[in-house]
């Protein structure tokens, strides 16, 4: 049982190496390259104007900051990058799940998978667990590596200009805490996104040709029908409010930190952490889990009894 799960999850990583591992690595590299290019542009600018004022000014600004302010400076950088990582993670998982029970039917390899002594529940659940736990962990791990690389790069540049990276970078930056917050963010995201994942999984197993269209249009149709039902029966044209509720799931799934403002008068890392804790306590999460459970059970059922070739 456990052995099967291990093999099945590894299998997902073989198939989706690009999306699960290369994507966050590429984001990291792009961000680092952008930082280097920014620095080089600064140098070019400095050499053209004949003064190093530009660079010196920046360093002076850093020195003016108190240790707390320096901390905030790094928090803003790291938290916003982790927001980007979590957003991309959500997009990656969206399409992974959408294809998870469809791709092997499209290429016929379902016949091979079904010829092995693995139950359909194991197959479906392994894909869900991959999306819920393992891919977020990989993204977080690569985020940590990126953060360290970013700080090392900055330190090198600072040393190049005769600065002490220890006091400017390594003491104020909170990689550990930010990582913890990212993990909490990933958990929050996973809980809010569960009903979406459940629906996508069902679309993936149910749809005969175009899971994407199925996944998008059925909810749209329901929404439109619901809207007009309200318009007709209650003469209530201003029914925008009712879409706020489902929108919440999408919002937290895409941007789990919610709306945050960092900076001098903004939130501290602890504030974000307690916000995340609070958002997990919403009763909507329970509804979401129930919805997800129903549709995942349906996905297993369809995979077991209908999707045989």
């Amino acid at each position, binding site marked *: 049982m456990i052995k099967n799960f291990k*093999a099945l999850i590894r299998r997902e990583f073989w198939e989706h190496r690009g999306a699960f591992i290369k994507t966050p690595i590429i984001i990291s590299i792009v961000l680092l390259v952008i930082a280097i290019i920014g620095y080089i542009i600064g140098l070019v600018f400095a050499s053209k104007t004949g003064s190093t004022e530009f660079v010196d000014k920046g360093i002076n600004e850093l020195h003016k900051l108190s240790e707390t302010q320096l901390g905030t400076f790094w928090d803003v950088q790291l938290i916003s990058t982790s927001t980007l990582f979590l957003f991309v993670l959500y997009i990656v998982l969206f399409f992974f799940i959408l294809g998870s029970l469809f791709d092997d039917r499209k290429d016929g390899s*379902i*016949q091979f998978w*079904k010829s092995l*002594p693995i*139950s359909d529940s194991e197959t479906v659940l392994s894909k869900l667990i991959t999306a819920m736990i393992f891919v977020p962990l990989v993204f977080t791990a690569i985020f940590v590596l990126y953060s360290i690389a970013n700080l090392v790069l900055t330190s090198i540049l600072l040393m190049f200009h005769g600065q002490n990276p220890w006091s400017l970078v390594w003491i104020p930056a909170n990689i550990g805490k930010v990582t913890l917050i990212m993990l909490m963010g990933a958990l929050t995201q996973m809980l809010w996104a569960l009903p979406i994942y459940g629906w996508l999984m069902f679309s993936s197993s149910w749809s005969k040709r175009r899971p994407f269209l199925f996944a998008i249009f059925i909810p749209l149709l329901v929404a439109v029908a619901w809207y007009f039902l309200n318009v007709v029966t209650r003469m209530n044209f201003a029914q925008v409010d009712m879409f706020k509720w489902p929108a919440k799931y999408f919002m937290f799934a895409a941007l789990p930190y919610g709306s945050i403002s960092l900076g001098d008068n903004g939130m501290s890392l602890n504030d974000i952490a307690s916000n995340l804790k609070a958002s997990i306590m919403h009763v909507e999460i329970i509804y979401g889990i129930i919805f997800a459970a129903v549709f995942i059970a349906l996905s297993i059922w369809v995979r077991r009894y209908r999707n045989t070739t």
Partner: protein
Amino acid sequence: MTQIIKATNLSKSYGKFQALKNINLTIGKGKIVGLIGPNGAGKTTLLKSLLGLTAYDGDLEVMGISPFKERAKLMEDICFIADVAVLPDWIKVNEVLDFVEQTHPKFSRTKAESFLKKTKLGAKQKVKSMSKGMVVQLHLAIVMSIEAKLLVLDEPTLGLDIIYRKDFYDNLLNDYFDNERTIIITTHQVEEIEHILTDLLFIKDGEIVLDANMEELTEEYFEVMVSSENYEDAMSFKPLQSRKVFGKHVMLFKHPNRGELEALGEVQRPGVADLFVAMLKEEDAA
């Protein structure tokens, strides 16, 4: 347990269409059974029932297990190749070996690797970069390394070059088959497999029209090369089928007495394909 498969009143309908009609069937250990029938006769439905991939009415036991209820468990003792090229594009040779090794308790990796050594496949090679024949070699290497009691092959050589097709069955017979194992094969190229079959099942319109072993068949059915002068005589024996080849009539008879037929001309063992066509005609006429 000498009976591998036991079906009693096995039926399956898709809406109004009855794909299988009250099939009764037993298949014993150590047989190589050819399941032959025209398109839409119910071959694939029958195989899918055996493999636990579809629900059915009636009773079906495969090695004492009810296939649809316990597919995953059954797959420990069954292997199947359904059509070719069902291995996923993205997988590498060593990955598929890893996966089967971890999930299949009766898989021997050493065996699979020794089969693969005879091919040109490399450990890091992706299925995407393989020809159809190579994919089948890989799939066959895996299947032959599983200690399964029943092997089900559904058109295993469809779309393969003739060289691979011949190798496929040679490997199967030499390296895999023994009296402890049972193989069920469906194919349109009957002539390729008739020399390895021990039993024949003809299926038509969801019914088994013939369930016989090859030896019985060769005692009852004969193909005779009848020359023109014996034509009238031969016709009185009511051949199932007659065709003209090089001025001689090749006739197919169902007859208990070989001696009587030998008087008409040279007697041969009939081909399964001819036999099948003749029997279908016989059915239609009846």
